[in-house]
């Protein structure tokens, strides 16, 4: 299907490669982008990509690949960029990752491939994410498709949820000759990629292109189907004739803080705030009908330190917020958000209020939010997560005037599939139990992965679970052994 990686054309001696600086990502100036939703990062040119690619040390045992949840063969694809064969580079990535234009944009590379890059120990690591994005975009511009040419197996697989894990399962299985249909509860495909991640970080057009690619590969999609309500897992298997089911229903119910005033108008969950903006395009009200609180000239804060929190507050800024705060109970070092997002947010003028925790949302009048009472925190002993536990400083309360607060402190398990699928094992928090190697659940023929198994995580970790699930679904379908 793809050509083998050619011998390295990288003529630069290893010693010299470390001296080449990491090529920065061209981006929109902070002032310009803070008021619009167009993408922040502009992407490498072919020249920049080759300039960056020659930095690769071509390690014999590449840690980048080991640390990639889907095992992208980084060294090989980077060598193909050096050779100037960008389409072959894209094909090489696609052997392991069906959504390269997406992961190239939203992966926390510092925790995975780039975190493993040997060069990172001395200088800046190879820009693997930037290179992945470049070849994926190049492939899309060229209109090239690598379509599976495998005989159909006659087996049918239902995928529940069209987010990163479900799309990965679908892409991997359709390439092995299985017939795959993806069911989505919302009216648009993509799961968190469309309702959660804003346009300025992941343009919807990119997702549509990746979905078109999957359709061309033979994946079928059906929207407006809530599995567990519209049709159950048992009905899919017994009545609609699916041989296996993958459950990738994703992040669930938003968690609130349980502090006074949380029900005031103007206090949102991040999921609602971002869904209104991203999925429903409420920022284009009244052209689009879904309404949204007018943020012009208002002070807005997000509570939390993850990618979702930064997505929400950077969106608020773009919608005209006067002041935009990130309120986080630990320090910046513990923030789970991607390093690049924190940097971008800061450049755009977001104020970081670290070691700060809300204790009460304060009303102004008529049931609307007027401010937040916070307490300052300090870091104590490490907790179960290994991060130092934040402890409130007695008597340090202060009030911050606010019109809108967005709570982005995580999600809990959505119960719909679990409660309508008898015999499906769940843990004490309600997440679906699945084997960490095979993604098998307690039900024969039913697999699960992504946030509905692990709780809130990242796109690439969900894709890793999808990849493992696809492998074991394929094994199950071909051997019929459970």
């Amino acid at each position, binding site marked *: 299907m793809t050509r083998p990686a050619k011998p390295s054309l990288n003529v630069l001696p290893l010693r010299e490669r470390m001296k080449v600086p990491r090529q920065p990502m061209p981006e929109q100036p902070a002032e310009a982008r803070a008021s619009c939703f167009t993408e922040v990062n502009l992407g490498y040119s072919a020249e920049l990509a080759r300039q960056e690619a020659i930095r690769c040390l071509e390690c014999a045992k590449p840690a980048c690949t080991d640390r990639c949840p889907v095992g992208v063969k980084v060294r090989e694809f980077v060598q193909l960029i050096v050779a100037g064969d960008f389409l072959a580079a894209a094909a090489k990535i696609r052997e392991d990752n069906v959504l390269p234009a997406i992961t190239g944009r939203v992966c926390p590379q510092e925790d995975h491939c780039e975190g493993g890059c040997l060069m990172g120990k001395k200088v800046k690591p190879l820009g693997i994410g930037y290179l992945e994005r470049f070849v994926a975009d190049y492939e899309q511009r060229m209109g090239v498709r690598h379509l599976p040419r495998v005989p159909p197996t006659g087996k049918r697989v239902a995928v529940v949820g069209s987010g990163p894990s479900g799309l990965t399962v679908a892409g991997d299985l359709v390439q092995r000759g299985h017939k795959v249909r993806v069911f989505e509860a919302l009216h648009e495909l993509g799961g968190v990629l469309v309702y959660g991640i804003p346009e300025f970080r992941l343009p919807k057009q990119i997702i549509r292109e990746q979905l078109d690619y999957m359709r061309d590969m033979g994946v079928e999609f059906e929207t*407006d189907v809530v599995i567990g309500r519209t049709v159950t897992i048992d009905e899919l298997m017994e009545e609609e004739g699916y041989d296996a089911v993958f459950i990738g229903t994703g992040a669930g119910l938003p968690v609130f803080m349980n502090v006074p005033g949380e029900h005031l108008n103007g206090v949102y969950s991040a999921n609602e705030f971002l869904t209104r903006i991203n999925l429903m395009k409420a920022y284009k009200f009244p052209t689009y009908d879904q309404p949204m609180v007018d943020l012009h000239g208002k002070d807005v804060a997000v509570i939390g330190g993850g990618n979702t929190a930064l997505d929400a507050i950077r969106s608020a800024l773009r919608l005209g917020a006067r002041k935009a705060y990130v309120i986080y109970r630990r320090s910046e070092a513990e923030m789970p958000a991607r390093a690049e997002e924190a940097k971008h947010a800061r450049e755009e003028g977001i104020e970081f209020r670290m070691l700060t925790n809300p204790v009460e949302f304060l009303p102004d009048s008529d049931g609307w939010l007027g401010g937040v009472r916070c307490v300052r925190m300090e870091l104590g002993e490490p907790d179960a997560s290994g991060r130092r536990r934040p402890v409130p400083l007695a008597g340090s309360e202060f009030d911050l005037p606010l019109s809108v607060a967005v709570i982005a402190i995580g999600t809990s398990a959505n119960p719909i599939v679990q409660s309508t699928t008898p015999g499906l094992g769940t843990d004490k928090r309600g997440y679906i139990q699945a084997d960490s190697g095979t993604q098998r659940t307690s039900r024969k023929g039913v697999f699960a992965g992504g946030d509905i198994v692990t709780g809130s995580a990242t796109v690439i970790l969900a894709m890793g679970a999808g990849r493992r699930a696809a492998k074991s679904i394929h094994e199950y379908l071909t051997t019929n052994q459970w």
Partner: protein
Amino acid sequence: MFNILHAEFIAPGIKRFHIEASRIARKQRPGQFVIVRVYEEGERIPLTIESSDNARGIISIVVQSLGKTTHLLNSLNAGDHILDVVGPLGRPSEIAKFGTVVVMGGGVGTAMAYPTAAALKRAGNRIISIVGARSRELVILEREMREVSDSLMITTDDGTYADKGFVTDKLRQLIQNGVRIDLVLAVGPIPMMKAVAGMTRGERIRTLVSLNPIMIDGTGMCGGCRVLVGGKSEFACVDGPEFDAHRVDFDLLVQRNRTYRAQEQRSLAEFQCEREARGKRGAADEGCAVEGARP
């Protein structure tokens, strides 16, 4: 795309649609609802399922013109489509033999109460129904409710039909007359449901209400539909829509449902203005000046 097979006004501003939706028709149980998005730029709104016909793959919904989306929906007719219909959502009503059940429907809430009343009747309960509306022409589903009720009482606010007064007046009479009531189900405007809850709380009559808060996805993802029940946040889409009336914070529900009042009024005003402009020949280019509207 979901085809509208049949559409008829059953009262001024209240329309019944038969929609082709075989998956939903097959699964729908009393107490559940759908979310619709009428067209590409449309918002998602929850709507009552009145009934469904599994054999024909059709669901019936009842829509009252309130804001832009419901006005737009009610301008559609047989042969038109609705872009998205998803469901059935929410937990079905608990259907069991309780004894005597008072089913109360206020306004278009009667459409939500009706399928549950019918199922409770089939389960062997004695059904006393109280249907209320502002005035005569807004009384809906009278025949249907009569068929599933052992007795049916009707009230109109203005006295233009049946008894003048509110549904709660009838409930008070039942209680005062010493009628043994095992369960009350009340579906209607929030003030009505709150009044019912106030009346049955002291009598310790188990009372359920079906809530209709702001909602987007309807699957438990957004948290917009959170309501305070017994001091705890619950999501109407996955934990409800029916809740123990005695534990619901109705005032908070009223407050939260007001969040987008200004935007809703503006959307509706612009929609009606556009519709009028379209109706008037040559007036289409005049545009619609709405107070506060951006150019």
